[in-house]
């Protein structure tokens, strides 16, 4: 009886969780002009429309570019600072670590607006670079926190051994610390990628003509319900799920090895 209730409850929640996504994907194959019942497909015409839309494809390329570069930068900055704080006794360390993680508690909207005001003052135009700077701001605390939490004493001992054997600090960092921490580095880079890939408000405020995919999708929403939006949404969902599965497989392999 208890298992019965549990199954019904779980099924209901799975239903709730999957209902919008199922509708999104189903009506992306709609044959007619509106993504509303009745379904009359399947048709690939809206996927064709997406691939032939220059704004969407350039938004896609921009999103990939911004996600990869900002995640790499955030991971490197996070790694260096985590290493510095974990291995050296720096005065005011707790306060400075607090400063680095502070952006985690502030809404993206506020971070984006602050940057917009600052760049206005400095006379810097809206651009992908401006949005990229914002993406590093939101991802750096995350990378720092993940990598810092994985800095253990056993790694410090190996680093010391390498130093005793004559390795320079750069060599220690690149050949000893980074490889030992690679799961944390991978997780940081990967999570940053997904956050940047999905980020809307900062990109919306800080870019103008050349913009990222979420902003282009937002622009499509002005047309109301439209199967083309379904198609591009389903494609984005597909990419994200693929990334999630890769992440899961890598994480699993790590645990089993």
């Amino acid at each position, binding site marked *: 009886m208890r298992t019965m209730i549990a199954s019904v409850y*779980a099924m209901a*929640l799975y239903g709730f969780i999957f209902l919008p996504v199922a509708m999104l994907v189903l009506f992306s194959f709609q044959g007619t002009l509106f993504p509303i019942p009745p379904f009359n497909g399947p048709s690939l015409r809206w996927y064709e429309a997406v691939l032939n839309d220059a704004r969407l494809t350039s938004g896609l390329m921009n999103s990939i570019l911004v996600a990869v570069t900002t995640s790499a930068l955030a991971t490197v900055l996070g790694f260096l*600072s985590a290493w510095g704080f974990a291995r050296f006794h720096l005065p005011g360390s707790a306060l400075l670590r607090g400063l680095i993680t502070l952006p985690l508690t502030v809404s993206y909207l506020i971070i984006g607006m602050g940057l917009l005001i600052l760049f206005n003052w400095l006379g810097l135009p809206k651009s992908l670079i401006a949005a990229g700077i914002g993406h590093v701001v939101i991802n750096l605390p995350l990378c720092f926190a993940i990598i810092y939490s994985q800095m253990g004493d056993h790694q410090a001992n190996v680093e010391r051994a390498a130093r005793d054997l004559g390795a320079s600090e750069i060599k220690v960092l690149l050949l000893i610390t980074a490889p030992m921490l690679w799961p944390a580095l991978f997780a940081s880079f990967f999570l940053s990628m997904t956050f940047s890939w999905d980020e809307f408000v900062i990109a919306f405020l800080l870019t103008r003509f050349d913009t990222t995919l979420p902003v282009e999708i937002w622009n499509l929403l002005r047309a109301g319900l439209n199967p083309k939006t379904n198609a591009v949404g389903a494609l984005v969902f597909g990419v994200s799920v693929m990334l999630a599965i890769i992440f899961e497989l890598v994480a699993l392999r790590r645990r089993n090895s």
Partner: protein
Amino acid sequence: MTPGTASRIGWASVTPALLWTLAFFALPFLAMAIVSVYPKGGAGFSLANYGQFFTNPSYWRAMTNSIEVTAIVTVISVLLAYPFAWILAFVVPRRWQRLALMLAVLPFWTSYVVRSYAWLLVLAEKGVINTSLLELGAITEPLQLANTRTATVIGFVHFFVMLLTLTIYANLKQLSPNYRKAAADLGATPLQSFAHVILPLTLPGIMVGAFLTFVLAIGDYITPQILGGNNELLMPQLIMMQIGRRGDFSSASALSIILMVVVTLAYFACARWLRIERA
């Protein structure tokens, strides 16, 4: 390595991240604070933008709307997610748990903008719910679901049920099974064991999840804008409106700072509460 070199290397490695945070987080915040006290079109320094928040009923209304919606969302999400996480952790056979959990949070990976749009497909006037209900004869007129507070709440709950299921599941799995066994040995019914043992032990984790929900929901512009529409404004919508339609960065900055103060207050309320729990 001398202590001097060591500290130089230490500083060199933390400086880039610190500079980045100062230049692109602290400095913009300072700029916002300054802009907020020089109202647009005003003669000079003035706290008018902050005063306006308390005197203009529509601004005040946006804040109370935000707090109401966020509180409703947080409570509903926790109530829905807890039993779900429980089932995933204790009822689903062990070998299927990982898959079951991954499925439960799969739509979490949909783009945030797309997820809200997907709910629009379900809730719109000619959407799935209205069409089905009309065909079943349960209603004769389509229900107004999109562009309401209900739609905003549904969109938010959808997202945060997944997030909270993840955090509560992790919490439940960390508990040693011995607690439940001990409670049962001492004669507790499953319900008693839950109410007096498991729930108190998982409460700190729930509070962290609830706080996260509160912070993320109250600062979000996308969900209320797409699903709630402009019938009833929440704070982030009001802030964006100041920037977009009116180009009034001064007022937008003041409202943002007020929103941050509310989030900080919520943080302190939660932090103190949590510490008492742990003692």
